[in-house]
């Protein structure tokens, strides 16, 4: 499979499956390494290539990957790699890799396997809405199939051994991407983030560690990987996310009850700017699209608008625009093109209601 179908079609985690008003996606990744071979960051180039040659054929043979996309990173352009980052199919660190690293993605883009990232294998499953258990099972099956062929570094005490000691044990990072505009508008987000941090879970921005929270999107994940079973970690995370959903729902209800005019004003302005701007940055676009999404959740816009919004969330990202235009764009040109696309797509989007009551 060529990269084109990947680049032109959104993954199932964004375009299909069950809709959840607050949880956008669930993701589980496992880190694995081959025993007694240097980790990618310490290996010489020739060793990395040899490790890749050992792992990649086994990954390519997986039935779950059949007809998927499989390529070495030195064969991809910078834009193509960046599109994969924006799709959450590879990490930013992996996009910086070239010779000796590879990525394998299944056709619906729900499973992606990075070879020679920080660890020899970083395998992830990503699904739509909130279903961490199923997402874990998907990647657990891949792991079980691969461990029959590859000798993974494992210690009875420390579990799976990883390049960074923060990942030893299960080697698992489970996360959910949540949309929390109610808590942000209600100015409760810092308090909520702090309390989640206190119980040993991490809250991060859109693209993981060290990234800014844009579009009111946050990633919640486990911090620790040793001392708990996989299902215990997932259960703990699941509970916290359920609490977050509850808090966000309450925040939205409270905004509707006490600050309805402010809320309507925000939604109306978001619609106004998005439908009339001729230049818009990716951050501004993302933040305003988030408010329109909230408008759909609250019934101010009909449900049909959701598909347009979801698609825009991806298509307004810098590399997606770059890929669409098929030529090198300066930041300013990207902002123009982004505004053009947003205006065009939102032509089909219904206008916000002229009254203050939703769903009429």
């Amino acid at each position, binding site marked *: 499979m060529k990269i084109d179908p990947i680049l032109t079609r959104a993954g199932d985690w964004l375009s299909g499956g069950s809709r959840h008003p607050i949880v956008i996606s669930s993701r589980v990744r496992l880190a694995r390494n081959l025993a007694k071979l240097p980790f990618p960051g310490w290996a010489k180039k020739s060793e990395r290539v040899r490790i890749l040659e050992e792992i990649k054929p086994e990954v390519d043979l997986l039935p779950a990957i059949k007809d998927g996309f499989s390529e070495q990173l030195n064969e991809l352009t910078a834009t193509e790699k960046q599109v994969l980052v924006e799709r959450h199919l590879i990490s930013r660190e992996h996009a910086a890799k070239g010779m000796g690293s590879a990525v394998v993605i299944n056709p619906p883009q729900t499973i992606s396997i990075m070879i020679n990232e920080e660890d020899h294998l970083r395998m992830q499953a990503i699904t739509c809405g909130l279903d961490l258990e199923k997402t874990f099972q998907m990647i657990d099956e891949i792991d079980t199939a691969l461990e029959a062929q590859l000798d993974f570094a494992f210690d009875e005490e*420390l579990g799976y051994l990883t390049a960074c000691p923060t990942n030893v044990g299960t080697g698992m990072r489970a996360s959910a991407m949540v949309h929390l505009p109610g808590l942000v508008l209600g100015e409760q987000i810092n308090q909520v983030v702090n309390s989640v941090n206190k119980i040993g879970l991490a809250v991060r921005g859109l693209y993981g560690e060290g990234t800014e929270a844009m579009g009111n999107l946050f990633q919640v994940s486990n911090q620790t990987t040793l001392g708990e079973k996989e299902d215990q970690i997932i259960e703990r995370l699941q509970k916290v996310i359920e609490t977050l959903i509850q808090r966000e729902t309450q925040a939205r209800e409270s905004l509707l009850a006490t600050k309805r005019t402010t809320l309507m004003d925000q939604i109306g302005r978001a619609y106004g700017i998005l439908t009339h701007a001729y230049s818009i940055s990716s951050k501004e676009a993302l933040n305003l699209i988030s408010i329109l999404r909230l408008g759909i959740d609250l019934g101010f816009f009909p449900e049909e608008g959701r598909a347009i919004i979801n698609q825009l969330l991806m298509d307004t990202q810098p590399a997606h625009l770059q890929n669409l235009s098929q030529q090198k764009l300066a930041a300013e040109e990207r902002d123009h093109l982004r505004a053009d696309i947003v205006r065009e797509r939102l032509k089909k989007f219904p206008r916000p209601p002229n009254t203050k009551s939703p769903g009429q």
Partner: protein
Amino acid sequence: MICDVCKTHTATVYLTQIVDGNMKKINLCESCSKEKGVADPTGFALADLLLGLGENQQVEQVTQTEHCPVCGFTQADFKKTGRLGCSTCYNTFSDALGSLIKAMHKGTQHTGKIPARLYRDLARTDRLNELRKHLEDAVSKEDYEKAANLRDEIRQLEGGRSQPI
């Protein structure tokens, strides 16, 4: 303090390196430190935080300069990158890593998934230990018929790693 390299800018990065057991201090300005590739604050901060080594400790530990027998990695490399060289490094540097891992995780014993082939080996070891204990009991109770059966079972298990359990 002036940068030791360009001798013009004010030094903001103070680097302590151990070369052949001798401590060397070097002061760098921001641009020189970047040029020398020592300005990765995450790498440094992480390793510092992780190992929690004071300067004295550092000198003591690095003079021993232990190399990982498999990949040649040293503790100084870990301090620099915050990542290990290979899976065997966990054995090589187990003393220093122990407290670090304890501090960053919920527990110190893995309780999650085990690779299937290892799982079979572990189950076999557990079963052998159990049988040996029964054997001791049987011998002390002078139940020689039972002991003989147990001995046979143990021999059979010890015979092949892939024997069904």
